[in-house]
């Protein structure tokens, strides 16, 4: 081990989360390296969403969460408020999209403009021409796929260093799954992504690294192809077979 190894973009050490009396995260240790896509995997209820929310300060946690941005400065995220954490350049697309249904598409994007970042409306509308046509439509009247586009557009509007994306393909038709994966793959060329994903076809296509959560602890981490190649291990950890290539 040399002393010049670049620190990971995100490091969580011994992170615990307790919610309404339940001990949900029981000492999570993980790192996300800069660049590429790290998949956060695990069965339903394993603690993936809670892990992401802990990073954002959306749930109270104990332990250490550190972020080392491109300026090389190590920032302690734990204990900070959500809006301060996000301003380090962290974008979040939640599991249920959480676009603002009572606001128009354009208002959803305006709201997402972060003060300390340039705003790339052009890039977003180029990726999602449909959103431009529907910019004056209330987001609540969009289809699930269109709402997911708004949620992803919010991520790409600002200059971010890390995107936390929670099950972006959940509930989408196969064609839309492919479209979302394509957009995220393009985004991943410029920004690090921590991707919670149940669709293993998408994982296989995009993920460089994989982290598996099980019952609030990290059960496995390493190169994604290694995990995907090991049918026994994926069955054991994720409860699914990786062969068969279902979308």
């Amino acid at each position, binding site marked *: 081990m040399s002393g010049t190894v670049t620190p990971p973009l995100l490091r969580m050490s011994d992170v615990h989360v307790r919610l309404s009396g339940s001990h949900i995260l029981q000492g999570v240790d993980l790192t996300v390296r800069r660049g590429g896509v790290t998949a956060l995997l695990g069965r339903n209820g394993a603690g993936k969403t809670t892990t992401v929310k802990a990073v954002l300060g959306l749930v109270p946690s104990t332990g250490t969460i550190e972020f080392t941005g491109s300026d090389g400065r190590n920032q302690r995220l734990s204990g900070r408020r959500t809006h301060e954490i996000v301003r380090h350049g962290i974008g979040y697309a939640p599991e249920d999209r959480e676009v603002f249904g009572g*606001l128009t598409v354009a208002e959803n994007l305006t*709201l997402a403009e*972060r003060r300390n970042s340039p705003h790339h409306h052009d890039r977003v509308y180029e990726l999602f021409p449909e959103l431009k046509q529907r910019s004056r439509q209330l987001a609540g009247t969009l289809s699930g796929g269109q709402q997911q586009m708004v949620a992803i557009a919010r991520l790409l509007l600002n200059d971010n260093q890390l995107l936390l994306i929670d099950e972006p393909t959940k509930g989408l038709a196969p064609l839309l799954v492919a479209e979302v994966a394509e957009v995220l793959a393009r985004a991943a060329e410029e920004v690090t992504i921590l991707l919670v994903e149940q669709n293993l076809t998408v994982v296989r296509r995009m993920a460089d690294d994989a982290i598996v959560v099980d019952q609030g602890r990290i059960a496995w981490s390493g190169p994604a192809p290694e995990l995907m190649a090991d049918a026994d291990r994926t069955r054991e950890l994720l409860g699914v077979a990786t062969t068969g290539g279902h979308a």
Partner: protein
Amino acid sequence: MSTVVLLTITGLGLAALYFLVASGLSLIFGLMGVLNFAHGAFLTIGAYGTWWASDHLPGAGSTGWGFVLAVVFGVAVGTAVAALIELALIRPLYERHIEQVLVTVGLSLALVALVRATWGADPHPFPRPEWTQRTTSVLGANVPNDRFLLIGSAVVVLVAVLAFLRFTRFGLIIRAGVENRSMVTALGIDVRRAFTLVFAIGGAFAALAGALGGIYLGSISPGQGTSLLIFAFIVVVIGGMSSITGTAVAAVLVGLVQQFANYYAASGVGDLSVVLLLAAVLLARPSGLTARLA
């Protein structure tokens, strides 16, 4: 006919007061989840601030621009007190709604007691510019001008709030925050600044209602705000808890029902009918008239 006209315009004047108090309550509840029981105290502060200024503030008086200045002073004090209360007492209890509500209950008692200790429990005559005491003939009815002042002020406030919510970034943040506060923070926005703002706005409107209520009633007393607050809460619930237009419609309903019932049934029946109206609306539409802001 002239009775109906008079009752209608007076009912709308009352509705204007209810709206001014209820709109702030509804913004605060919608965004922060806090039922602000101190809101009636903001009204009392606005009334006493105006009354005090009309006598003591240089340049202020009880007629013309002097009176306008007195009202501005009363509103400014109400606004400042509301903002300070949010910063000093509500903010430290962030996300602890029960404690926040208890603080506002305590404040409402304390502020009223403070006013009573300073200026006594007895009513004081309120300065009334002469124009407000004259009448204007509308379809045969002689309507006191203060009704028009009340209605006009509420309409201006309604239009201003809707424009603010619709066209400003803070308005956007408030509309989004009413829907989903935590997602607003996840976009990098310090939603607490909007909390202070809605408290200040609510305090300003309530204080204005205090000054206008003083003109309407002709006198002020420490408990006035608290009794008006009950009807304002009913208006908020009927209006759907966090909708400005819903609040405006509900205020008109409550004001009219109260006036007409008091006149055609018996005095006091008006208050009862308002409660019946509340029950009827909640039975027919449990979430109030409208569930969306603006």
